[in-house]
């Protein structure tokens, strides 16, 4: 039994310290998934915290035969998918409240933080805007495939889909992203041309 399995077992028996170790170990992959899904560091922080809280509450349901990371990322992905679906109807609430209505402390976004600053600098990132144009489940499948190197079988297990559905979703997403990529290229070319014509030297 490795260290992680020991922590998982201890956490299942109610050891909060062991669960904290799991949070420390998996904070980056969970946060990254939420960030890529939701596109905002503040929302990603909230979603990652909520995913860990849900994992804590359902530790007794975790089956040791399954990799813990897959189980945890599956919780985070489902939470983000639900959140994005709700956003379509009611819009995002930026209030720092959890499901119970308790307020909690969010990191000070305005405080100088090189990591956050670097993330904000990437908001116009092409990957970001392309992911934003995808359906929630397709987005989760793409993130799992390209950031976590999950196989189609693993993605299917995490998102409760069939392997063929995952394959078709991945293909559809890549095609759609290619379309967006072409549009971006065209916009970029048009902008360059416009600037070239407007320049005094022309």
């Amino acid at each position: 039994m490795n260290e992680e399995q020991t922590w998982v077992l201890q956490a299942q028996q109610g050891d909060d310290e062991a669960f904290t170790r799991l949070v420390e170990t998996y904070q980056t992959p969970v946060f990254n998934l939420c960030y890529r899904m939701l596109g905002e560091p503040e929302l990603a922080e909230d979603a990652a915290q909520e995913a860990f809280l849900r994992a804590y509450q359902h530790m007794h349901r975790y089956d040791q035969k399954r990799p813990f990371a897959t189980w945890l990322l599956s919780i985070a992905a489902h939470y983000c998918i639900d959140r994005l679906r709700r956003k379509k109807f009611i819009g995002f609430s930026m209030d720092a409240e959890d499901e119970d209505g308790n307020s909690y402390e969010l990191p000070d976004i305005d405080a100088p933080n090189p990591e956050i600053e670097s993330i904000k600098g990437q908001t116009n990132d092409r990957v970001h805007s392309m992911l934003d144009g995808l359906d929630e489940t397709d987005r989760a499948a793409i993130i799992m495939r390209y950031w976590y190197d999950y196989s189609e079988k693993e993605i299917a297990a995490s998102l409760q889909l069939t392997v063929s559905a995952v394959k078709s979703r991945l293909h559809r997403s890549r095609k759609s992203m290619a379309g967006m990529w072409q549009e971006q290229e065209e916009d970029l070319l048009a902008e360059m041309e416009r600037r070239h014509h407007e320049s005094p030297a022309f």
Partner: protein
Amino acid sequence: MNHQPFESWLLDDKHLSANEKRELDAHVRTCRYCSALAGTGLALRSANVVSPAAGFTARFQSRLTAHKIAERRRRLWGLILLAITGAILLGILAAPLIKTFVSSSVEWFTALTSYFLYVYTSFQAFGDIASVLARMAPNFIPTYGWMVMLSTVAGLGLIWIISIWRFSNKPQGVSL
């Protein structure tokens, strides 16, 4: 333009031979769609992994504490609500009885005492019958009958213990 087999290669992230790679490069140079497909694949594969702001674990711990407090509060309120509802229901159901008890308490006590006496004598009678049967039964049941009966009881007990053990050790569910 025919994009096959290049589109499938790009979509499936196929591992290409040197020859296939040359063919794909030549196609991508002339096909805008496949070039975009290759571009997105490259962009996705080279995207970085983003970490949360420092202190994530500490923030999770405070959130967990707040959640536990809220949960306890919710349970307490649930219990209080249940107790109040129960008391009100009991009051409504017992109201006619309380009314008669207040108006004729002596009759009440007499009825209650006679009821308890009836229950007590009934139990005593059943006990006497059971002890007589217990004294007589061994003479009618042969030794092998006792052995069969005891083995059945032991077997059932064992099955019961094993099922409890298996149920309590089985992981409940595999995912959320």
